[in-house]
């Protein structure tokens, strides 16, 4: 279990994580394609973060008839600050679910089962896209570095890390 979380309490609603995410994955700023997002109601200041829970959820993986959503082991290295750093350190092992676009048929079954609505159709390619923690250097965290905010956080469990290290 290694995944991104957005603290609704701390988040200021700047969407900087979505900007960075889209630039990293799409080669241009396009927040409508971001792999995570924050719903913001300006009037009430209510904010709800939407992020992929990766292997801790894995409903998309179970639903995929093509076996296109695969578990990938990664090494996460974060140069900036984040709330979970004290527990996890700057570098640790984890696992994420990634879309094998060669196998994905774009059927959309995964969109329907995702509880946080973060696996979505790419607007041009007929495939699903989702968070892959930038394969180890998540830009959403790199751009949520206001020391008073640090709303984008990472969660990981030792158990998961152990499995990964064991070569699962």
């Amino acid at each position: 279990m290694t995944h991104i979380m957005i603290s609704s309490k701390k988040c200021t609603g700047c969407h900087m994580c979505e900007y960075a995410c889209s630039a990293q994955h799409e080669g241009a700023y396009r927040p409508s394609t971001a792999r995570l997002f924050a719903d913001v109601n300006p009037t009430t200041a209510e904010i709800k973060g939407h992020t992929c829970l990766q292997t801790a959820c894995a409903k998309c993986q179970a639903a995929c008839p093509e076996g296109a959503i695969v578990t990938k082991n990664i090494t996460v290295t974060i140069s900036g600050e984040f709330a979970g750093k004290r527990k996890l350190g700057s570098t640790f092992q984890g696992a994420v679910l990634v879309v094998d676009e060669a196998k994905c048929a774009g059927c959309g079954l995964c969109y329907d089962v995702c509880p946080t609505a973060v696996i979505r159709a790419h607007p041009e390619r007929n495939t699903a896209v989702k968070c892959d923690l930038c394969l180890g250097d998540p830009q959403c965290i790199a751009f949520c570095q206001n020391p008073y905010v640090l709303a984008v956080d990472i969660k990981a469990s030792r158990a998961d890390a152990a499995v990964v290290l064991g070569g699962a």
Partner: protein
Amino acid sequence: MDFYQGRVLRIDLTEGSVMVEPLNMEWARQYIGGKGLLFRYLLDEVPPGVAPLSEENPLMLFTGPFAGTGVTTCSRLVVGCKSPATGTILDSYVGGSFAPELKFAGYDALILTGHAAHPTLVWIENDAVELRSAHKYVGMGIAQLEETLRRDLDYNAKFMSNGPAGERLLPWACLSTDHYHKAGRGGAGALMGSKNVKAIAVRGTGAVSVGDAKAFLADLRRIHKDYILTPANLWAHEEGTLALVDMVQVAGAMPTRNWSQGQFEGNDSINSRAYMKMRLKKRACSQCALGCRNFHVFGEARGEGPEFETVAICGANCGIGDAETLFRFNLACDDLGMDTISTGGVVAQAMDMTERGIHDFGMRFGDAEGYLAAPELIARREGIGADLALGARELAAKYGHPEIAMQVKNLELPGYDPRGTFGMSLAYATADRGGCHQRSYVQADEILGGSLPPDSLDGKAAVNIHWQNFTSIKYAGIWCEFWALELDEMRQLLRHVWDSDFSDDELLRIGERAWNLSRLFNVGQAVEADTVPARLVEASGAFSDGPSAGRYIGADRFARGLAEYYQLRGWDASGTPTEAKLDQLGIDARV
């Protein structure tokens, strides 16, 4: 081209037609974006002598090259037209998330011309642009309007909308986005109201390209660390503009009881500390790592604000020393869509006129009941509101006391009293859109941490000119006031946009060019002379107590300062740019 979409969306409301035209890239190179680019379009399209509320006055919304990218604070939008309040050129800035959304929809700018026959909603969904009936939205306040539009159109759509004040053409009606964010000054809302447009909604799902995105991200991470998330900027997050309240109070420059004192004895009840106790959370504009906005909770009343200007003009200046009362007044103005500086200025003046026995408006300084009822009455022009909606200057003239109105070019003055910070007298007098504090931050040099003497005009013409040129390039970005960036950081960012390295002089030249355009525009529109209210400069207006007691600029010294300003600007004695200056700046337009 990267950063720019290269497209302007032009909507003729009279014809009901929609056109996309290429952005003038030659002008974009000359002015970058935002302020200067807007001014170049305005100068081209607003005929001399046009009535501000006629259909010949276009309403323009411009972005900067960095809107829709990760460059902090550059989500700002500038709204422009010939101002319904002042008759000058108008550039009114607003944060929130409208500008990025407009870019993602594929446009650098939106220009509305003509006049719609029926209340209209402009709905822009990428390439699809629709003019819909807005009958069902007429009369709605901003909160209800945004909520309804989100439901009717798209949860992720962004809005630039008019409240009841704009529908009734209040000269200081503002445009609102993300509920609490206002293109506040100068009455763009009145123009949109006269065009019969209730709201502009936009949803964009496209991209803004920046060349090599990964290299750009890497450079931005560096810029964030070295230049943004530093103590020089993080005050904006810790406190926000409320940090200014105590500083202005201590300097004796806090407009109090319609500018009759420079300090307010109730200051401690409406300063940053007072509001911090009621803060629920911090809020940010789109693409801003600073997040300066404060969301407050007072019982069932919840919302953002007030900001410093509102505290000064609607608080101290109205004798209101209660945080909740002031907060509720601010919320009312926000929902009605009216600028708080002008509203507070007019209300303070009505209180003053009542106290002095000039006319009884039924409210005195510090009277919460009359004060809280005022915004709604003004927006609807009911009761005393019919009189107050005239604005400070016309209201004072109507009752035979023009000297009581604190305005420049019919724009009610903001929260820095020049008797406590002399340089601001020239700043107000020469500001392109009338009595405005956001063109020259000479007060920063005088009372907000700087070391220039606040009680002298010596050398202040040059200081004002530097600030005006500097903010003019800053508002091209469009960078926010609250990022204290230098020319060097601007250059580092602009290097990604244009394949050249701007020198400091070149950047300031771009700002100077924009400033001269605004002067050309104002001369062409026969705008009134540059001056400030007499009591801010004459000996008889000096305060009798407080830190700035006994100080006055003097009419002669003010006149000399203004003459020096024109001379240093390369303008003639009447304040008109000379041919030589325009040629030097490469400005092809003429009056």
